[in-house]
């Protein structure tokens, strides 16, 4: 009698343990997904913050460079009026105009590079926002349905994180590879 009870007890305990194991496994998987999504959302937020800082910096620098270029253009106009310079050939013989044209050439090149970078960062920021929103939605789904396929989303998030995270520590552009406009074209823009 005692042996039967022991057997029965053992089988019952085993069944309960199996159920608990399966339940815990499911819960654990769901918990893992939730945790992973939350972690990714945190990473997205962090990267967005970094990108915002970079964007702000790039825009601030761009504004400064544009102001400098405008000041140099104004100086060229004054020199042109004072020295009655009409042609580009005569203009480049005047040191101030020639130097200013070269500086404007650099500045415009930098501004163009910054514009490209700003656009790139803005795209990244928006894409990250999109994935953040999707992660939020998926989290709610997991909370409601206890499960959802999130591996693809996580892979996409990882991809964009891998793409943009290194950019936050890189320089905004390479000054050596900046495309320079022709000074004559710049002169013509100023004169006309």
């Amino acid at each position: 009698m005692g042996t039967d009870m022991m057997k029965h007890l053992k089988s019952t305990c085993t069944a309960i343990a199996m159920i608990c194991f399966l339940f815990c496994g499911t819960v654990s998987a769901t918990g893992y997904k939730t945790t992973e999504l939350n972690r990714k959302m945190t990473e997205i937020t962090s990267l967005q913050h970094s990108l915002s800082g970079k964007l702000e910096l790039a825009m601030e620098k761009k504004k400064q460079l544009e102001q400098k270029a405008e000041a140099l253009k104004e100086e060229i106009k004054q020199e042109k009026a004072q020295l009655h310079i009409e042609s580009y050939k005569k203009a480049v013989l005047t040191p101030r105009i020639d130097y200013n044209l070269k500086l404007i050439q650099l500045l415009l090149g930098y501004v163009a590079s910054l514009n490209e970078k700003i656009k790139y960062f803005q795209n990244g920021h928006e894409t990250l926002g999109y994935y953040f929103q999707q992660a939020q939605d998926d989290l709610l789904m997991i909370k409601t349905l206890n499960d959802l396929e999130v591996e693809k989303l996580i892979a996409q998030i990882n991809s964009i994180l891998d793409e943009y995270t290194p950019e936050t520590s890189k320089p905004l552009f390479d000054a050596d590879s900046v495309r320079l406009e022709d000074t004559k074209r710049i002169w013509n823009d100023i004169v006309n």
Partner: protein
Amino acid sequence: MGKESDKKSSNPSKLEPLEELEPNQKELMELDARDMIEPLAQKSDNTNDHQQHDELGAPEGVTIAEQEIALDEVAEITFDEVDRQIASDPGNVETEVLLDQNDVQTSGPLDLDDVPEQESNETAIPLEEEPDDPQVEDEVVSDEIPSDEEPDADSELSEFEEQPAEDSQNLPTVDKDENDFVTLDDVDDDKIDDGIDEKRAKEEIFVTGTEENEDVGENLSETSKAEDKKLADLNGAGKEEKNLKTTAKSQNGKISNRGSLSSKKVVIAALIVLMISGIIIYATLSLIGIKGKVETVPEAKSQTREPAEPAQIQAQMPKPPGKYDKYLAKLKEAEGLRNDLLQKKEEIYKLKLYYRNGIVELTDQISHEMQKAPISSFAQALKNKRIELNLRTIQRRQAYIQELEKPNQWVHNGSEELLFLKRKALLGLQIAEIASGIDLDRHMRYVNAAIQKYQPSAEKLTVDNYTSNFTPLETIWSQIQNQQVEKAQNPVSHKDEKIIAEICSGDFKRIAELSNMTARAAKCLSQMNGSDLFLNGLKQLAPDEAKYLSQWPGNWICLNSVNTLSPSVARYLFKWEGSWISLNGLTEFPPELTLYLMEWKGNQLELMGLNYHKKKPDQRALKYLALWETMGGKLFVSEGVRKEMERVM
């Protein structure tokens, strides 16, 4: 343990301590009579002498087991025999009486209390731990512990006992006692007290007829077990008698060990006090921040922040070297050099201005000479020494002006290049943090090269062989002659001739209608009385006319229709000693004029017609005008010019 017992049993002086302690036992008896609990401690105190004795002479090895063996022999004597001994030998019986009294007064359990305390330490800690282990307690209470189980029972103390046992193999008996001391050191008074309490609890079991006392005795040593067996074999003695005898044995052991135990207690107490005080000191030091806990560190830092404020202020004064400081220093050096070059450029400009004005003056002198004597040809002019020298001076000054253009251009190029390099380097510095490929060192190399190149040395500024640029004197003469002809082509109108005639006759009513001035008219006007001279119809003024006008002793001259002013005219005009000149017809005020303006003693100048042309800015003239104002002059200009002057300054 067996070896130790054997050694103890073989000790011939095993009874000596017991005999020596008898007088103290008497005192203990009295004390026990007063208090049943105190004697335990008091005995320990009173046995200090014995401890000293043991240490000096008596072997301490004669302790518990040896005394127990000695007592075994005594234990074989029954109570009847004890009575007899009391009658025959009061001295020996005194001890027994004391023991009996103790037994009676404490009814046995007191002896058990003394067992773990005074006998070997091997039993002290197990007894202490008995309440924690019910099994052990049960075994102790119900079953006799076999003799071969004793080492197991002592195994918990192996770390305390192993070392003494090892030492005892090689050392004499005295060393064994030292081992005992070491073991005793591990016993706290508190533990002993706890053991007492536990034994009191067992006392009840003992009183009800259990053989608990025997069990405890077996825990002590094989010798004590043998003694118990012998006691059990005794027919005439009950179990209480056995207990009494066991107590007597332990009492004797107590007496012999009391001295060493008390000293050990003192040492233990001292160690405990030291440990506690050490912990307190450690905690106190931690609290006061000398030796820190992790939590106290930030507090200490936060506490030191306020007094550290002066240090922060001091630290702000010497600025830490920045990342770009060396570049900025180099750019500052370049800026300094550029300022020097600009200053040199200004000096060159002033010099050229001086030469130009001098040429104008010389030309006027030549014209004046030509008017004095009819000179129509260059040959005639050269015969006039003054005209010739003036012509040569003009020639040289013109060459100077021409030669000055070379250093002026060099200085200008240097200043412009330095400005460009500085701007470019600053641009590099500005984007160095956000862009790669910025070679600031390369910028600095260029700046360095420019600094070396444009140092304004005499060698670079020198004017060499200016005579090669001399304009022929004949050409200069021709230029002057042409000017005279142009001037002669502007004849004075009939109306002006009439007005001039009126002026020279002393009638100054129509001077405002005068459109052309002559030297004669100016000379006449200089004789006019009055404070104001309104010549607002006058469109031109020649230097000689200005020279006469400057002699007028009035206060205000109005020349508001004059639209141009030559430096030579300005030279005379600003020698006038009046205070107010109105030149509102002037749209420009060339910088050359400002040199004379600075020498004027008057204080009001009207230039309301002056315009600031953005397309033709003349910053230098505005700067001089502003400078004249700062010297005390009052300038009347339009609002736009005023703003521009403020901007320039």
